[in-house]
């Protein structure tokens, strides 16, 4: 018994008979979200288009509910699989309600007339995506965020077991991205549907996916859990990032550090250093950072942006050796900014460092220093 609701077996995809990606073996269970990530033009859309039969398979099969889709009738597929694709829909003179109602197509009779039951399901789908308020507006007159939600409602009205979405969050603002993914997650939980989608937002992919397919250089590079896929090194390699870095824990990216001899030493800790690191990076000023425990909130950003970094192991007390290294870095930089205002046993070393800088006249007010560089 095939555990997967949708399962590609030796699937080779491509355009006009020319293979692009060969022997793809991926699957999604009901109640799971499978996310395709990878650089632009890597073939994510090609895979999705092949699964939904917009593109002919060049080899292999796609099994839906345990049976090859090639052997299923059009209507049988339509009642199981719904889509939300990127192509613009020309819905002339259609209200949003009309558009969602097109999802009932596989269930209506020869003339496509809607029954009471159909209307009830359409209403429910509109409620699910919180679109009841603009149901009577023309489809052409709504915003991008509303449109994506409506297309999802259309897919829900089709009562599918699996929904395939191609970059559903592109062009949406942060609120609408979250809303859309929340709705998807909800569908997966409450209706036990399977979801296959492609995403550009790695942070979101990391949060909602049960499984991740990494597509790059015309190959499926990995098909694994998000925990295994979202590793900084791997993501940087997958996207061929030449500058900057990716922080897998937070799902955020950082710009490349400013190289050269540090002009400033930044004493940070507990998140207080991050805004200063960023300002210096924006201004193109190379800086040293310290003394940070390696589990400090400031540490990931400092590691990404600082030209020089003084650290101690996680949870360790700042010892004399670390203090010496920091002192040397401070001397080379010649100026010090202290972002920390609260000291305790854990960062006693930083207090000593700050006092010393003050004594020697190296301490600079961060506001004044960064202000003077303003044009």
């Amino acid at each position: 018994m095939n555990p997967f609701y949708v399962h590609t077996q030796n699937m080779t995809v491509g355009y006009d008979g020319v293979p692009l990606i060969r022997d793809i073996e991926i699957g999604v269970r009901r109640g799971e979200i499978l996310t395709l990530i990878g650089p632009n033009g890597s073939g994510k859309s090609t895979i999705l288009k092949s699964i939904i039969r917009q593109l002919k398979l060049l080899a292999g099969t796609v099994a839906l509910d345990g049976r090859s889709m090639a052997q299923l009738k059009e209507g049988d597929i339509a009642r199981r699989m719904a889509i939300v694709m990127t192509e613009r829909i020309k819905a002339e003179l259609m209200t949003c309600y009309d558009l969602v109602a097109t999802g009932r197509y596989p269930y209506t009779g020869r003339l496509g007339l809607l029954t009471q039951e159909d209307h009830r399901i359409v209403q429910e789908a509109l409620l699910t995506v919180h679109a009841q308020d603009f149901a009577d507006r023309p489809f052409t007159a709504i915003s991008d965020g509303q449109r994506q939600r409506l297309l999802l409602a259309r897919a829900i009205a089709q009562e599918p077991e699996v929904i395939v979405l191609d970059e559903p969050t592109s062009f949406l603002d942060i609120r609408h991205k979250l809303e859309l993914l929340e709705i998807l997650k909800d569908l997966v939980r409450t209706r036990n549907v399977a979801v296959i989608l492609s995403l550009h937002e790695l942070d979101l992919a990391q949060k909602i996916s049960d499984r991740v397919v990494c597509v790059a250089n015309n190959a499926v590079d990995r098909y694994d859990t998000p925990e295994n896929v979202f590793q900084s090194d791997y993501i940087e390699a997958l996207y061929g990032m030449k500058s900057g870095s990716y922080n897998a824990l937070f799902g955020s990216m950082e710009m490349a550090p400013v190289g050269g001899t540090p002009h400033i030493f930044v004493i940070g800790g507990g998140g207080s250093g991050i805004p200063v690191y960023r300002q210096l990076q924006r201004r193109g000023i190379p800086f040293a950072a310290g003394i940070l425990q390696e589990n400090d909130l400031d540490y990931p950003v400092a590691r990404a942006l600082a030209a020089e970094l003084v650290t101690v192991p996680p949870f360790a007390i700042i010892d004399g050796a670390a203090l010496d290294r920091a002192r040397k870095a401070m001397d080379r930089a010649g100026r010090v900014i202290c972002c920390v205002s609260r000291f305790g046993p854990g960062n006693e070393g930083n207090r000593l460092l700050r006092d010393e800088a003050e004594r020697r006249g190296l301490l600079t007010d961060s506001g004044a220093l960064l202000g003077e560089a303003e044009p």
Partner: protein
Amino acid sequence: MRGKRARLYLGFAGLVVALLGLFVLNVNSGSVSLSPGEIWTILLARGGDNGAIVWNIRLPRILATALLGGALALSGFLLQTFFANPIAGPFILGISSGAKLVLSLVMIGFLSRGVAVGSLGLIVAAFLGAMLSMGFVLLISARVKRMSLLIIGGVMIGYICSAVTDFVVAFADDANIVNLHNWSRGSFSGMIWENVGVMAGVVLLVLLLTFFLSKPISAYQLGETYAQNMGVNIKAFRAVLILLSSVLSATVTAFAGPISFVGVAVPHIMRSLFKTAKPIVMIPACFLGGGVFCLLSDLIARTAFAPTELSISAVTALFGAPVVILVMLKRQREQL
């Protein structure tokens, strides 16, 4: 919801009333004017002094005009759906001209040997011509995505077909030319009952088939990808759509020659009248609307400068072309 329903009933009621009114006006007017009372007597008693005029000339012409007008508008609606192009139509895309070309060849070929071609034979010839043009249009549409380029391609195909037709006519016998020349400009004159019977059979059958396709057509309006996902067999559906629209425009061309702008304009007028693009409404509405549009145009063509009769395309273009311009301007505004 209630407003929509009311618009639907009012719209169809309006179209039927207009159709009946134009029917009476068309029977009434001409070189011999008849009062409504007289018409009534003639229709019921099949007699009277002018019975022959009504029964042999005016009635077949009126019925043919309504049927062919409906066929043109329906063909336009199908082509607009197929190409997802709001200014597609059988004349603009050169399909009518292709039909005209093959028809001219067949007519000259057979007439010069003294063989008469039956109504169905004419339709078949026109259908082959329509498919020929359609083939070229499909080739173009596979290569260009811009709507305007497709239209330009179609117009060019139309010109080529017309030019070749002119060559052919130039080499034909005198007697045929007169006949052909009148027809090749488009005209509803000279309809006989046998024609009406055949065209009614073909057109009404296609109308019925199309009506039962309104569900997949509605899916296709969202684009091929979504239509396929909804369970439409795209290849078969596209082929059927092409066949039906070609049969319709071929039938019109076989009997009345190429008639411009009805296919483009009427679907738009119907869309704005009914405020919907749903095929289940649009298919009957376009058919009735096409009949009304052509009856009105034919009435004007016959009576405006009587006894001289205008070519029907002169009148339909006068009403239809501005509609196309309005549509394009409206599109442009919406895109900004």
